[in-house]
């Protein structure tokens, strides 16, 4: 645990494709499950962060397993024909605090009806070569909705 807590700087070449709205973003877990990951970004050039809509899902469980058992994941970006890959560690799960709020507000600014269960912080480990991106899936749905209470609050407008 202790050895990895510092993480590495994200090389500059990642910053522009990460912020490009035309970039397609993916995360691949060690068992080859690959998910779309549109919320991936870096706000400070060091920390990578993604929003997890629901936890009790295949995507949620894969993130937990990667964090618990120190299993590096692959982050893949595709801009036009160019594919970039990195190995990253799943570093921290945020359920409150500044990074959590930042990701949540991002999600809600796109669609006020959207909610997010948790924000996940990843740290760059090394660049890798990725040849293809296949069998990408969207996360399955949680059995019970995972809403925050402020999404359920009563307003005069209904």
């Amino acid at each position, binding site marked *: *645990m*202790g050895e990895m*807590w*510092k993480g590495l700087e994200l090389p500059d070449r990642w910053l522009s494709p990460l912020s490009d709205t035309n970039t397609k973003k993916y995360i691949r877990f060690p068992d080859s499950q690959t998910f779309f990951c549109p919320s991936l970004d870096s706000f400070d050039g060091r920390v990578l962060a993604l929003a997890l809509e629901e*936890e*009790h899902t295949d995507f*949620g*469980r894969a993130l*937990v*397993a990667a*964090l*618990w*058992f120190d299993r590096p994941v692959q982050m893949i970006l595709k801009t036009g024909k160019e594919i970039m890959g990195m190995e990253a560690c799943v*570093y*921290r*799960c*945020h*359920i*409150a*605090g*500044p990074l*959590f*709020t930042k990701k*949540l*507000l991002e999600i*809600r600014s796109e669609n006020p009806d959207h*909610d*997010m269960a*948790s924000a996940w912080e990843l740290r760059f480990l090394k660049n890798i070569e990725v040849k293809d991106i296949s069998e990408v899936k969207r996360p399955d749905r949680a*059995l*019970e909705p*995972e*809403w*925050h*209470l*402020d999404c*359920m*609050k*009563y307003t005069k407008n*209904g």
Partner: protein
Amino acid sequence: MKKKREEWEKLCRTYPDLSPFVLLKISMVWYGAVLTETALDRLQEPDYCFGKLEPFAIQFDGRPANKVMPGGILLRDATYVYINYGETYENPYQIDWDDEQGEFLLRDEDGIIDTVDFVPRPDFFGKITSKGTPMEAVADARAQKLIFTAFQKCRLWEGKDQCHFCAFFTGRYSLGEVDCEEIYETVREALKEPGRFSEIYLSGGTDFSGEPPFSVEIERYIRVLQAVGRNFQGRFSSQLMAPAYPHQALKRIYEETGLTSYCPNIEVWDKHLFQTLCPGKEKWIGYEEWIRRTLDAVEIFGKGKVCTQVVAGAELARPYGFKTEDEAIKSNFEGCEFFAKNGVICLSTIWRPHRASRLGFQPMPSLSYYVRLAKGFHEIRKSYGLISTNDDYKHCGNHPDSDLERLDV
């Protein structure tokens, strides 16, 4: 003196399928933790500074008078660790603040184990209700849970019938009965912070007043839940931790409020030990009746929406407890299985002996006892298809066994 890191790493090797974070949490609660002055100073700043007034106040002698104690600890996977700050521990972990990294560090005697964080200060702390009460005295907060204590004392203490492990309300500050309007206002204020809360938790000390007994308490909980509910449309994610009520009373609570989950805590599964360690619960309700009512509640709230917990370790406490950990484990697993079979989630929480309780300060069962218990409870419930969405790592954090559920469903 035991080396904590070595011991924890050994546990990780022995239980490679269990979360290292949950194992670390068990170890941290077991050994305790102290904050360095630098860490405590950092925790006085606005992003972390918690309230001075704790609704479930427990008396601790070792707290610096001029500093506010922080919220719970969050490990890197957001596992919640509750530490009795100010307790005198023999061989505690240390939590320090690293200014250069901008992170809190968990250390043992040999160095850094990991980085940790704390529950951030909720925005409603520091605000006051229309009647002038600080909102931090009305509600407490965890990372995602908003906690109300409807009655900030327990009448079981009056006849010395309190649970033997309990030290609640031994601190100096208490509001007694809380005001519904203030609860409504505090919820309304808390909901202004985006995504901060996903469950409301209501509990309080036992109040057997009224005829039939507990009728005053039941009416109070209905009033409070209705006040909370004025902030929502329909049901809202919530849990009531209260005595085991008769079916009709529970039905009223369910139908007249937006409550979604109910938790009458058995505390100790063994019948004889329950009767000894929880004399007030035995006197006012009784062991068999407590269990019968708990099972009946599933008809109202649904499978997996009724919970109960054991204060794990109290069943081994001197002078009444089991003589061996194996006997205690067997009893606890039997209880967990019995409840699971009947759709009730039985959880374990780690007993921390406290000087202000009747059992006093005495040695806890071994660390491995708690690991076996967490693993066993998790496996038993899983085999019955139970998952604790109301008492998981996010909405409670007191139960290592439910922290382990994150890979299940």
